[in-house]
């Protein structure tokens, strides 16, 4: 079977069967980690630091221990030891995972003790009764781009001479900011664990069961094969369930301390704002130099981001500008401010999502400065080759997305000047921004096993995680196509470390890597067993290396359009229309793909108008850590959201010809909204979220 046979009309790929897990999800019978009925569980309740920096002097647990049902109070003095020198994968931060291994407090909210009890109520009540005395040290939790101690994590990327470039006819030099955000999937991070006979069993909310297995095994000094991780259904992750965080380790410590007993820990929403990472705020200084014709001569992006004294995590917000537009003189760099704060983490399209805000608003400013259509400015700066590496693009259809989007959105009807359209007391405007997301190598290796069960039925298994994306369905389609059988004949098994290893669900690589692996397994199967296999026949396939990976720059692209209304008197901001057109290779399942795109765009809208974790630097923590105060777009904020895609053939990216679609939908949305708000009002907002106080009085 050749790669080009994929997606041919009439086969399973390319159509949109509904999600196979849909009915179970709707009926509540697809269990998340906490919902497994385990015998006689104990419950873990964390005690969190109320200082941002210092040392635990004493943990007074007497009152807590007196509570009926309390089994143990874990502190750094008595908790089981971990191998904090363990070699972990590049995704993990061992210092973040060294839970209760010392009395040092490095951020507010850090786990400093935990209660294990017979009931949930007793555990939580007792946790509130644990008194911790600290030696408090001065802390520093104030993020800004005006700090002398900001460090460059690597040398700036430079081409040409961005500083001394010949004076340009048009210069846009501005500072843009994106807010700190917290991932907040619907299912909070959960671990249900039991340690018995040298084996550790985990029901875990995770984007990768093998990553959990290996990390936990290394920390405990166990053989990875003795750690078993089950996670068939996961209620979202948005990146925060990729790397492990402290709560998983805490639950494991409790399980080790209570051999033979199941222990359960699910975070509260408030704890989700303290213990499982966040998207760093960014401050982006962008300088675009161009001719009067809008052609760029220089692109200079320096992004200041937040990291932690615990361990570094750099939100690569200056990254996307590297490959976006042609310009001979370029610099992209990061400045990292390390604070007494928790370690940031991945959040949907890390780097790309915040990093396309500044440059894409700056491109809009450039367009207005040159008197050009913002689409035209982008078209004039389309690069022939990847400006960063000089490699050819495997495919680049940004221009087609912009044109198709303009047509569908009615871009030509927009008012010629900002502030030119008022309807019923609302100023109305339209904005556009580009979007891009790379085809990255998958985070981890993958194998898939195919077994003929008899009666025409094939079982396909691998430990991939469906975090709500539709992988259960799309992978069955891929398998059906690869085997040349109807979809109903394929049984998929996912999300269990007893199945063949699969890479983490991250970087929008899931379908590409797992699908390619299943494809390889199907070829292997047919090679070994032919078209008429015996029941029980089996074959395993391995993720094929992509020979083209090093020779091409590979990206998915999109164009995001927004209509924004700003109330003339109150400044209230609404987004009646969002429209995205994407070029992301072959779309395997139109239904689940559309959900990924529109879901990303909705999250982008939420970022544009609402999401902001407010850190009070005096205390060092997020003070609006619940869903009444930390706003996520509500249904009423999300009106007409449409996603379309263009047909794109890209045989170079992988045998499926598919690029990742999980993240690109959130990239560029906020810039499109801010650009539309400018068109509506003439007020340029350069700091997210865009809110009513940006407009009133203006």
């Amino acid at each position, binding site marked *: 079977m050749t790669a080009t046979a994929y997606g041919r009309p009439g086969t399973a790929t390319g159509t949109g069967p509904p999600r196979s897990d849909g009915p179970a999800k709707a009926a509540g019978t697809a269990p998340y980690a906490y919902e497994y009925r385990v015998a006689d569980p104990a419950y873990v309740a964390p005690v969190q630091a*109320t200082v941002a920096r210092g040392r635990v002097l004493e943990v007074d647990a007497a009152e807590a221990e007196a509570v009926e049902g309390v089994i143990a109070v874990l502190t750094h003095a008595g908790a089981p030891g971990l191998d904090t020198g363990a070699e972990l994968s590049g995704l993990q931060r061992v210092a973040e995972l060294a839970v209760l291994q010392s009395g040092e407090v490095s951020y*507010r909210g850090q786990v400093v003790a935990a209660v294990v009890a017979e009931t949930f*109520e007793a555990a*939580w*009540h007792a946790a*509130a009764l644990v008194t911790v005395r600290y030696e408090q040290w001065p802390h520093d939790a104030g993020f800004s781009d005006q700090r002398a101690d900001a460090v460059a994590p690597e040398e700036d990327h430079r081409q040409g001479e961005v500083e001394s470039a010949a004076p340009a006819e048009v210069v846009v030099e501005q500072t843009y900011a994106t807010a700190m955000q917290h991932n907040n999937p619907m299912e909070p991070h959960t671990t249900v664990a039991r340690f018995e006979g040298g084996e550790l069993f985990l029901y875990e909310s995770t984007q990768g069961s093998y990553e959990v297995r290996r990390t936990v095994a290394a920390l405990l000094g166990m053989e990875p094969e003795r750690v078993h991780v089950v996670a068939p259904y996961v209620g979202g992750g948005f990146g925060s369930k990729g790397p492990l965080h402290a709560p998983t380790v805490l639950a494991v410590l409790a399980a080790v301390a209570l051999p033979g007993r199941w222990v359960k820990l699910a975070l*509260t929403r*408030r704890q989700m704002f303290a213990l499982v990472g966040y998207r760093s705020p960014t401050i982006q200084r962008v300088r675009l130099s161009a001719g009067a014709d809008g052609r760029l001569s220089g692109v200079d992006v320096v992004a200041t981001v937040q990291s932690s004294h615990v361990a570094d995590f750099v939100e690569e917000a200056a990254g996307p500008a590297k490959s976006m537009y042609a310009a001979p003189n370029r610099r992209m760099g990061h400045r990292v401010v390390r604070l007494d704060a928790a370690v940031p983490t991945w959040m949907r399209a890390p780097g790309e999502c915040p990093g396309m805000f500044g440059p894409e608003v700056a491109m809009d400013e450039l367009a207005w400065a040159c008197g050009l259509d913002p689409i035209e400015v982008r078209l004039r700066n389309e690069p022939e080759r990847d400006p960063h590496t000089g490699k050819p693009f495997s495919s680049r259809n940004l221009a087609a997305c912009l044109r198709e989007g303009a047509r569908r959105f009615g871009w030509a009807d927009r008012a010629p000047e900002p502030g030119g359209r008022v309807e019923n*007391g609302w100023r109305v405007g339209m904005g556009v921004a580009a979007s891009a997301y790379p085809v990255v190598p998958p985070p981890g290796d993958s194998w898939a096993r195919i077994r003929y069960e008899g009666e025409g039925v094939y079982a396909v298994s691998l430990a991939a995680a469906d975090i709500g994306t539709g992988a259960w369905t799309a992978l069955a389609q891929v398998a059906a196509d690869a085997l040349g059988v109807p979809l109903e004949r394929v049984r998929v098994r996912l999300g269990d470390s007893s199945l063949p290893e699969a890479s983490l669900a991250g970087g929008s690589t899931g379908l590409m890597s797992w699908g390619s692996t299943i494809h390889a397994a199907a070829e292997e199967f047919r090679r070994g067993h032919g078209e008429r296999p015996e029941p029980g026949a089996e074959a395993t396939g391995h993720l094929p290396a992509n020979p083209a990976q090093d020779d091409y720059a590979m990206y998915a692209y999109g164009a995001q359009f927004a209509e924004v209304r700003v109330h003339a*008197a*109150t*400044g*209230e901001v*609404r987004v009646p229309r969002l429209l995205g057109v994407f070029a992301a290779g072959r779309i395997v399942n139109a239904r689940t793909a559309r959900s990924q795109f529109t879901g990303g765009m909705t999250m982008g809208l939420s970022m544009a*108008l*609402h999401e902001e974790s*407010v850190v*009070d630097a*005096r*205390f060092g*923590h997020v*003070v*609006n850590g*619940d869903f*009444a*105060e930390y*706003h996520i*777009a*509500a*249904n*009423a*904020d999300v009106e007409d959201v449409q996603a379309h895609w263009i047909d794109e053939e890209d045989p170079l990216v992988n045998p499926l010809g598919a690029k990742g679609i999980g993240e690109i939908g959130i990239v560029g949305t906020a810039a499109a909204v801010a650009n539309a708000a400018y068109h509506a009002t003439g007020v340029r907002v350069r700091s997210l979220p865009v*809110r*009513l*106080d940006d407009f*009133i*009085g203006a």
Partner: protein
Amino acid sequence: MKPFDYRRASDAAGAAALVAEHPGAAFLGGGTNLVDHMKLGVAAPDMLVDITHLPMDRVEALPEGEGGVSIGANVRNSEAAAHPLVRERYPVLSQALLSGASGQLRNAATTGGNLLQRTRCVYFQDTGTPCNKREPGSGCSALEGYQRYHAVFGASPDCVATHPSDMAVALVALDARVVVTDAAGGERRIPVAELHRLPGEAPEQDTVLSRGDLITAVELPEMPMAARARYRKIRDRASFAFALVSAAVGLELAADGTVADVRIALGGVAHKPWRALLAEEALRGSAATEAGFAAAAEAELSEARPLPGNVFKLELVRAAVTETLGEVAAELRGEGEL
């Protein structure tokens, strides 16, 4: 959450007496505010007296002659909003209720609980930070902290919090009163406008009620301007968000087109639903024009003392007052929707 005793009250006076006798007791209405606070450690009652089975669950017309409508303290927010007597006679109250919280919360929240819900000040809800309202004398974290949802009228150096209820704002504009049963079985009526306090030096006291005082009903008097009064809520999200500023506005025009009577109550701006008396005074007897409405808003704003983090609220007060008055006036003149 601290373990607690649960009692189901069987009559109003008994419930009041039970709470009055037990310093650690609290009434339980829908629980959407109190139970949250128990989970957060903001409230730690050792006894909950469930009042939701008491027969205070009706919306009914007050006896002939008195006019008006009574809403039992246990009537759920969604029920009150949908009740024909409320929708016909006091649509502004329906609008205010429906602009609050979410459908699920409104199904659980009671009239009494809504009135007595506590501030959403983030520091009040966070036991790890100083807060005079939660822990008298510990300090006010908001004074130099996050102030977006805080007061611009009537605050004190001890507390700058706002009262979050939308319903209460409409009730103040409607001259409503609460009916209170006390521990001794006595009954008294308090205008809603006088129920909540300004923080002064005792921000821990939200209201003028004493321990054990049970709200049994809210009474709405007959009021000619009620049928056309309107509620406008300005917020950060299109729904499911507390007001940055809201306004409940009623207007009565004289035959010559001047303002015969007016009610303006503001939400999101003070420790209590804020009756804009200065604005009302400026308007009574004057022309019902856009300029007049704007001048009224300015009169009220002369009393405003915004915080660095919420100066923008002044503009919102201006917009909410002038636009809503303008809409009501237009409707009264038969001009229909603006």
